[in-house]
């Protein structure tokens, strides 16, 4: 993170898959620490592609990206894991590992980071309690409901206390009540200092987080309905 609270900066970024036309064009914006961002846009607008750039699953075709003060374009491949550990991801389709229990799915980022087993059980139980899944700790993903799977995915994304949480349509597969609960979870996390980026096409959600900033994608180009991207908020204290 830079001194002015900037954690992500995109400069004229474009992305194309193969030789097709660009799915993202001329993206220039900055994300700041501790903010809550909604990324909106119609289906096919490029939300998932932009999130993939944010969680380093994809490199752009052009432009520059700076993440946590480091040039993410020239970052050697060997250093990607360290950068990725600072980013929590909630996938649209959860992407839980089917043969692992809820506990082991949530423990995955800690094990990847090399934590000792004795240091894993406590935090994993705490986070599963936080998302209300204490009684489903040993359940396999196949036996969990959509909402429960989503909460396991969120728990997995935040267990390692990432600097930024990226969620792709996290409420797309759950009922409105559960969607509201999930957004409250994100808000709680955001209040603890994590930058949150939630991609959604559900405009009702935006009203549920009053201080959120909105990024709108339209055919791969970014608009700035709140002005927050063109006129960034002051440094947070």
């Amino acid at each position: 993170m830079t001194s002015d609270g900037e954690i992500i900066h995109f400069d004229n970024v474009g992305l194309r898959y193969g030789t097709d036309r660009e799915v993202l064009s001329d993206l220039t914006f900055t994300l700041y620490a501790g903010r809550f961002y909604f990324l909106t846009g119609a289906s096919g607008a490029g939300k998932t592609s932009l999130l993939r750039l944010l969680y380093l699953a994809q490199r752009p075709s052009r432009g520059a990206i700076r993440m946590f003060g480091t040039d993410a374009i020239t970052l050697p491949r060997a250093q990607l894991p360290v950068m990725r550990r600072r980013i929590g991801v909630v996938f649209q389709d959860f992407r839980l590992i089917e043969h692992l229990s809820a506990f082991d799915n949530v423990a995955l980022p800690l094990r990847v980071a090399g934590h000792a087993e004795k240091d894993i059980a406590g935090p994993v139980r705490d986070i599963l309690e936080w998302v209300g899944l204490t009684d489903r700790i040993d359940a396999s993903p196949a036996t969990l409901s959509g909402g429960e799977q989503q909460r396991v995915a969120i728990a997995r994304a935040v267990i390692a206390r990432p600097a930024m949480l990226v969620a792709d349509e996290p409420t797309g597969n759950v009922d409105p009540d559960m969607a509201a609960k999930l957004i409250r979870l994100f808000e709680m996390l955001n209040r603890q200092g994590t930058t949150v980026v939630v991609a959604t096409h559900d405009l009702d959600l935006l009203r549920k987080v009053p201080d959120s900033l909105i990024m709108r994608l339209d055919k791969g180009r970014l608009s700035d309905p709140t002005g927050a991207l063109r006129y960034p908020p002051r440094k947070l204290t």
Partner: protein
Amino acid sequence: MRRSSVLGRWFTAGSRVELIPQGRMSGPMPWVIAIMVAMTAIALAAGLALGNAVSAAKAEIDGGVTVQIIEPRADVREAQAARAVEAIKTIPGVAGLRQVPQAELDALIEPWLGTGIAAATGSAIPVPALIDVRLNGPASAAQLAAIAKRVTPVAPSARIDAQSNWLRPVFDAMVSLQVLAMVIVALLAGALAAAVLLAARSALGANRDTIEIVHLLGGTDAQVARVFQRSIGYDAAGGGAVGLALAMVVILTLGRRFEGLGAGLVDSGALVWSDWLILAVVPVLATLLAMLTARLTVLHALRKML
């Protein structure tokens, strides 16, 4: 050959859950490795046995020289043989000599011609007189020439040969077989590596989603490779042990059969304890080779992913 659930474990020590289920990774691999190890051990045992036979035979006859007195007249033959023995005794580098007794010579031809030839035909078969000479070192051309120089004047019917010359084609054939056995061992090692490579690629494809998630959560290539390497290592160790046991049964059975032949050259090819030690190392090397192949294959494949 399904093993316990501790296989294909997590990255951290002490964890007992599987990142990638072992059943999805191994398949027929332990059996393929078992067959490869068995064939390798058998080929290696053959190579070692041939090597032992060649070494033993060479040690025995390397310094051996045979002097034949090829003379049909028995009295002349005996006289020349006696003079040749005396002449050879004076040559430097001769460790010992022995004139083969007539009774032994008769015994040599008895299986083909029978006994009582002299009584039946009135004259004995003119078998050459044989003098078996032992030199201190291998029989070189210079030493053969020195022997000829001393023997020929006193025994003009003498023919002098290094014993190793007679068996050279046999030795050459045995060495060729030994080389062939080693080539087979190398080919089997290559085939094992290829089989592991295919298995690792297949397992990578089958577990691509899991690997991608682990990557996105900050997992390193080395961590992912370690999971595959360890899993294939277990497969190789189990398969290798079974393969070695199979090979032992085959080698011991063949050994017993060859012992029954009672042929000197074959007997000298028996495996010694150091050979058994080398055979025992085969599954260990196969396991290391399989793990190394799996690691390199997985790392190579992962480098193509972001």
